[in-house]
């Protein structure tokens, strides 16, 4: 259920503008990898190339390759829709479908894949996913109510439940806590350390304490200046990046002496 991601010389373009330059990185399975860096350094853009979600933006394209356990996501004949069914994603702002109940939200992805899942299996999957997302106890009595009635933190955990109901190989999280209060943030962070037993998790965060708390590996992205592409400066075990990074810029950023 958990796969390794390798990218080699990955470049991302928006039209003629190169947003991300030559990223080569290996993301370990069953671990949390955090992308940190200043705003606009391309970490979110790079994250989106891991499930081809950047293609939603007109004019965005990728050069290079992304291997998911050796299989190139950008190979000829690879369907982006299939890629996204394997690589789940959680967004910055919680986005449960407002017209669906909590239960329907969890099953939203499944309904796309297997049209006919027996009712008892559906119920089982809903419970399992919500339990994995640490949300079951809070919502078990109101599964038929709309997901938009939950608090922000609960909504975000519902989105995580929705993503893991698909049994993805990888879970991408794009600043999943930036719209949440500290207590909800803590709940999500706890959840991440449980989920990494099963999934490859990649998280983009602006919160360095968060990266230090939850991740096993940290990758630091930076830009030389506005208009120049974002680059991967260095990546390594989180302990090392936060104590003795190899590159001066990483140390400056982490210690807050930046710019």
């Amino acid at each position, binding site marked *: 259920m958990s796969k390794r991601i390798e990218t080699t010389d990955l470049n991302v373009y928006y039209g003629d503008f190169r947003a991300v330059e030559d990223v080569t990185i290996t993301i370990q399975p069953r671990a949390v990898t955090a992308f940190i860096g200043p705003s606009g350094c391309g970490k979110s853009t790079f994250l989106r190339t891991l499930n081809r979600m950047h293609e939603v933006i007109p004019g965005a394209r990728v050069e290079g390759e992304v291997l998911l356990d050796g299989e190139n996501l950008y190979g000829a004949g690879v369907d982006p829709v299939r890629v996204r069914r394997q690589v789940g994603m959680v967004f910055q702002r919680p986005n449960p479908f407002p*017209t669906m109940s909590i239960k329907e939200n969890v099953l939203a992805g499944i309904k796309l894949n297997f049209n006919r899942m027996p009712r008892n299996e559906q119920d089982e999957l809903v419970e399992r996913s919500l339990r994995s997302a640490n949300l079951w106890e809070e919502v078990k009595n109101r599964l038929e109510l709309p997901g938009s009635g939950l608090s922000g933190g609960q909504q975000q955990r519902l989105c995580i439940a929705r993503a893991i109901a*698909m049994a993805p190989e990888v879970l991408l999280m794009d600043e999943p806590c930036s719209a949440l209060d500290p207590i909800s943030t803590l709940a999500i962070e706890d959840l991440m350390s449980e989920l990494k037993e099963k999934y490859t998790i990649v998280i983009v965060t602006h919160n360095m304490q968060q990266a230090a708390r939850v991740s096993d590996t940290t990758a630091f992205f930076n830009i030389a200046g506005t208009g120049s592409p974002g680059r991967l400066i260095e990546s390594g075990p989180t302990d090392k990046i936060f104590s003795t990074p190899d590159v001066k810029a990483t140390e400056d950023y982490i210690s807050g002496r930046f710019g």
Partner: protein
Amino acid sequence: MTQKLTRALTDPGAGPDPSSGMPDPKRRGDRIFRGFAMGAGITILVILALVATFLLVQGSPALFADPAKLISQGYGEFLPWVLPYAFGTIWAAVLALLFAVPVSIGIALFISHYAPRRLAQPLGYVIDLLAAVPSVVFGLWGSLVLAPAAVPLYEWLNANLGFIPLFSGQVSGGGRNMFTIAIVLATMILPIITSLCREVFLQAPRLHEEAALALGATRWEMIKMAVFPFARPGIIAAVMLGLGRALGETMAVTMILSGSRNITFEVLTSQNPNTIAATIAQNFPEAFGLKTSQLIAAGLVLFLITLVVNMIARWIVSRRAEYSGAN
């Protein structure tokens, strides 16, 4: 600095003194605008009330007249007289919606989610331009071009699908039948439904579209999951506006249909129920006395039909307000 600012905002003494008798010019503007907006709101209610009163007062002689008198001086007993026209009105409008709604939603989706921007914009303009064509022109086109041209189609439908009651009967020679009316009305209401749908489709939250795509939805699945549920009230509103126009359309129907007074679902024959609006337009010039009242009372019936349609639409829109896209 911040402290000063909050003081200025919370402490009434810090602003212009309310007791000094000098009206704050900003607040006066506010008052004027409020008065204007309220006046406009009241005006529309008054106009509506006046129209309803006119219909009631001027139509009531026919509504309460002795049937025998209506038969001798009017068009006949009121209800049996107006019923076929009410039926014709609703039937024509429903058929027009049947044609227009799927096409409109398709075009709107194409513009909002499928077409490249270079194509989408001109297409939008063309659709809006269609709304600017006067209904007389549609009437001319319908009776002179569309009706004769569609006769082979009607004959084919009659020959091959004649076992369905809709297409049975004797096909009208000139093609001036309900089917033609439905197509012309559909063309006329297409632009308004399309542009309203396009607007709501474009407003579908990107957040939810991305959520669907990230779950591995194809574009069509994404539209079903994230766009349609969000746009549902907007689509209904658009359809109702189109229906309103189709119900009230006079000119095109008058020019195309030689309507009669029979209730039939057959759409290809020459025996078609006329619509209320067209009946009024055709008979008004020669009407006098009780006949005029009777036509006005028919107008009241049309008014009521539109009112009911709108109320049903409101009810549909509000039924699942809890699930609305606003969160």
